[in-house]
C-alpha cells in the first residue's frame, strides 16, 4: 500500500540544511497496525505527515497505492484524502463552531454523499461510538477523551483505508487512552490500516509492528 524509498526531509536554515528524516525505506501493506516510536524530535510527526501527504519529502520516492505522490496535483491529492485517508491529531482539531453531529458530517459533505445517506452514516457512527447523546454539543463542552473519540469517529466515518494518528492519546489520561487504543485494534480487525506515532510503550503494545526512529534515522531498536 505504501512504499517509501530513500525518503529524506530537511529544512533550510540559512545555508545549512537541518535533516529531520534521513533515507527512510519503508513498506507498509494493507491491514497493518504500525506504531512509529522515538524520542521527541526524532521525526515521527514528519514521517507521518509525509505519509499523509501533508508534507512533501525533500528527496526520495513515495508511492501510495499506485500513485507516485510526488507528481500529484492538488486535485488528485484531495481525491486521495477523500477516498483513503483519515487523520487523528493529538489536539483533536475539531471545528469549534460545529456540533459533534456537524463535525462528523463535514468530511461526508466533501465526498458529496447524498443527504439521506449522510444522515444514516452519521447516526451509525454516533451509535457505534456511543456518543448519540452528545451529538448536539459543541467540542468545548466535551472532555478531552470524548473530543478524541469524536476526532476518531470523524476520521473513520468516510470509511478510509488508512488512519494516520499523531499522538492520539497524548492529551488523554491512561483510562481514556486505553479505550482509544482498543478502538484502533477493533478498526484494524475490520481491515483498516493504522499508522500511529507515539511516545507510549503502552500504545505500542497494541500494534503488530513497531518501527523506531532516532534523529531521523530508521533504527532497529532504541
Amino acid at each position: 500500500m505504501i512504499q517509501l524509498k530513500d525518503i529524506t526531509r530537511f529544512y533550510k536554515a540559512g545555508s545549512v540544511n537541518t535533516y529531520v528524516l534521513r533515507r527512510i525505506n519503508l513498506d507498509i501493506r494493507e491491514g497493518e497496525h504500525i506504531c512509529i516510536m522515538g524520542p521527541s524530535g526524532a521525526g515521527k510527526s514528519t514521517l507521518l505527515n509525509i505519509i499523509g501527504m501533508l508534507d512533501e519529502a525533500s528527496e526520495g520516492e513515495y508511492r501510495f497505492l499506485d500513485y507516485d505522490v510526488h507528481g500529484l496535483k492538488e486535485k488528485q491529492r484531495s481525491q486521495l484524502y477523500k477516498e483513503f485517508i483519515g487523520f487523528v491529531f493529538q489536539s483533536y482539531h475539531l471545528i469549534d463552531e460545529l456540533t459533534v453531529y456537524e463535525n462528523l458530517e463535514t468530511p461526508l459533505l466533501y465526498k458529496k454523499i447524498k443527504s439521506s445517506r449522510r444522515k444514516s452514516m452519521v447516526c451509525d457512527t454516533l451509535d457505534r461510538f456511543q456518543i448519540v447523546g452528545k451529538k448536539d454539543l459543541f467540542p468545548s463542552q466535551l472532555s478531552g477523551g470524548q473530543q478524541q473519540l469524536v476526532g476518531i469517529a470523524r476520521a473513520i466515518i468516510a470509511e478510509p483505508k488508512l488512519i494516520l494518528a499523531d499522538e492520539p492519546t497524548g492529551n488523554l489520561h491512561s483510562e481514556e487512552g486505553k479505550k482509544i487504543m482498543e478502538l484502533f485494534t477493533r478498526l484494524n480487525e475490520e481491515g483498516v490500516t493504522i499508522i500511529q506515532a507515539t511516545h507510549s510503550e503502552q500504545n505500542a503494545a497494541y500494534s503488530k509492528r513497531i518501527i523506531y526512529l532516532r534523529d531521523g534515522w530508521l533504527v532497529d531498536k532504541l
Partner: protein
Amino acid sequence: MIRNYFKIALRNITRNKAYSLINITGLAIGMACCILITMWVVDELSFDRYHENAGRIYRVTHELTLGGTSRTAPLVSLPMAPALVEEYPEVINAVRLSRVPRTPVQYGDKVFYEEGILFADSSVFDIFSFPLVEGNPGNALAASYTAVLSEATARKYFGDEDPLGKTIIYNGSSYYTVTGVVKDVPRNSHFTFDILCSYKTLVEDQPWRSAWGNIGDFGYILLEKNADYRALENKLPALIDKHLGDALKQVGASLKLFVQPLTDIHLHSNMVGELGSNGNIVYVYLFSGIAVFILLIACVNFINLATARAASRAREVGMRKTFGAMRSKLIRQFVSESILFCFLAVILSLVLLELFLPLFNSIAGRELSVSFWRSPWFIPGLLGLVLLVGLAAGSYPAFYLSSFQPIRVLKGDLKSGRSNARFRSVLVVFQFTISIALIAGTVIIYNQLNYVRSVNLGFQQDQVVVISNMNKFQLYQQESFRNEMSGLAGVVDVTLSSGVPGKSGGYLQNFLPEGFSEDQSQLVRVMKIDEHFLSTLGIELASGRNFSEEIASDSVESVLINETAAAMFGWDEAIGKIIKQPDTQSPERDYISHKVIGVVKDFHINSLHEPIEPLIITSKYEPWLETIRNLSVRLAPGNIRNTMDLIKDRWSAFSSNLPFDYFFLDETFARQYREDERLGNLVLSFSLLAVIIGCLGLLGLSSFTAEQRTREIGIRKVLGASMTGIVRLLLKEFTLLVLAANVIAWPLAYFVMKRWLEGFAYHTDIGPGTFIVTGLIALAIAILTVSYQAVRAAVLNPVKALRHE
C-alpha cells in the same frame, strides 16, 4: 454543503460579537452612504429625461462677442425660434419661453406673489411632456391673454371651483383667462413653472421684442429623429448672417448660436441666466468617488479584521484540507461567508437609510424618498451591491485563509499574521488617506465659506430691507413713497434702484466709450439708481461726485461708472469722459451721449464666484435703460420689528393693499452660497462617516494587535517596562501609519480643492495651516481610538499574559 458554511458563518458571527458588530456596522454605514449617493446621482442623471421627446429636444443658446469680451447665455431673440423651424427641415417645432420676475397674481380677494411665471408658445405642450389635466393642449395658449396653471397653483387660487374660463389679474392690471390646468412639473426638471401665460401676448403687446437683436427669451426646438444637432449648429451662422450680419458688423460684434441637448442642460450647463439652478457634473463625479471610497474603507475594515484574526480560522482550514477540501472550495466558503456579512450589513444599511434620509434631504436640498425603493431595479441593485462588496471585501481574506498549509496550522505553529502586518498597514494608510483628504476638503470649504461671509463686499449689507416690486408704479409715485419712508422713525436712509447686490438683474448693453472706434462697442451691465443709493448702501466714491438733484444735467446726461469699468476703458482719469450709446429708437442709429461724473469704488453686485463686472450707473431719470424695481431701506439698529410694522402699514396704504413682499439684503446675498454650503455640509457628513468607519476598523485592528502582543507586553513588563512605555509602544505603530497617510492625503486634497476654489473669482489660499490642523485632527482621532486597547493591554497583569501562552 452551503448549509454547513452557513452555520459556521452564523456561529462565527454570534461567537465573536464585537468583531461582527464592527464589521457589519462598518459595512452597513458604507453601504448606506453608497446607496444614498447612488440615489442622489440617479436623481441628478434623471433630470428632464421624463419627456417623451427628451432625446430630440434642444435648447438654442448664444455667445455674443463685443469689444473683446464674450458672453454666453441660454437666450435667443423672439424671431429666432420660428425662423429655425421655417428654414431647416430637421427642426420640427419650436417653443419660446420668457421669464418674468416675481409678480403679484390676483383672483377675487386672493393675491399671491408668483415666482414661477413663464410666457410660452402653445407648442410647449407638443414638445415637452407637460400633460394637461384640463383644457386642450392644442389651443390652451394659442390666444393672447390666456394662462395655464399648474394643479397646485389652480388649487391655491380656485380651491374646488373649476378654473377653466376664470380670469386672473396679472400684476394688478392685465387680465388672463385660464384655459387649462397642467400636472405639476416634476421636480427633476431644469426648469419648473406654476403659471404659463401665452407668449402671443408678448408678441402683440411688446412689438419692440420682435427685433432680431433683442435677445432675452429661451428657445427650445424639437428635431427629427436621428437628426444631427451638431450639423444643424454648423448651419446657423448663415442664419445670423442673413438677419443680423450688418448690424453686428457695424458695432464690431459677433454672435454665434449653439444647440444644446435638453438632457445635457442640468449637469453640463451653467450659464448666467439659467432658468433654474442647475447641477454640476463635477459634483456627480465627486460624490460617486466619495461613495466608492467610503465603501472601500468599509471593505478594508473587513479585510484587515479577517486577516488579523485568521489564526482563529486556521485550524478549521487545515482540517478541511485533510478531509480533501480543495482550495477553491475553501475560497468559495470564505467568500460566501463575507457575502453573508454583506447581506446582514445591507439590511442594517436600509434601516440606517430610512432613518437618515430626511436628514440627507435637508442637507442636500433634495426630496429623495423611500418610494425610490419600489423601482424595479432596486432589489437587483441591492443584491448586486451585496455581491460586489462581498467579493471586494472577501476575496483577499479568502485567498489568504485558504492558503494555509495544514501541516503548519495543525501543528499550531502559525506565526499569526506577521507577514500580513505590512499589507494591513498599507490598507490602514489607504483608509486614513481618504479620511484625511475628506477632512481637509471640509476644512477648505468651510474656510472659503467663512471668507465669503466676512470679506469686505464694498457695501454695507446689514439691516437693509428691500421691497422689490416697485416697477408697477410711476417714478413720481415711487419717489413720493421713498420720501415717506425716509421720514419714518427707525429708518436711516432709503433709495430707489433697478438692481441691488445679489439681484443685479440688469441687461448687458453695448456702449461706445470715449477713445473707442465705432466698431469697438463694449458690452457693459447697466444699473439705474437715485442720488441716495451710495449713502444707503454705504458705497464709496473713488473720485468725482454722486448724482445731485440740484444739477439739472444730471437727470439724463450724467453717469457713474465703477473702477472696473474705468480700468476696462483704459481711463486713468475718468471724470468728464463721454460714453456713447446707440439709440435703438432712432432709425438712423444715432448715439446718446453720457458724461462720467464720478467713479464708485468696486462693490460686489454678484456672488464672489463672479469677478466684479464693469458697471455703468445711470440716474433714475434715464428713460430707456432698466426699470426701477427696488426700494432699499436702511434700518437703524434696534427695534427693527417695530420699524418693519410701520413700513408695512405705509406700503398697504401706498399700494392699495398689495401684499408686503420684501427681503433682507444680507440674507439674499448669502443665499448665493447655498449650493456651496450644501456641498460643505455634505462633504462634512461623508468625511465624518468615513472617519467613523475607519475608526471602527482601527478599534478592531488595535484590539487584535494588542492581543497578539500580549505575551510580548507581559515579558516587557516583567523586565521592568512602565505602563506609559507600553502604551507608547502600541501607539507608535498606528501613529506612524496616520502620519504616512497625511503625507499622501495632503497633495490629493490640495489639487482637488484648488480646482473647487477656482470656481470663485475671489477665494482664500490653501495654507499649510489647513493641513496641519487636518493632520492633528486625524492623529488625535486615531490615538484616541487605539489608546483604549493600548491602555487595556498595558494594565494587564503580566502573570496572566504569560500564562496565556
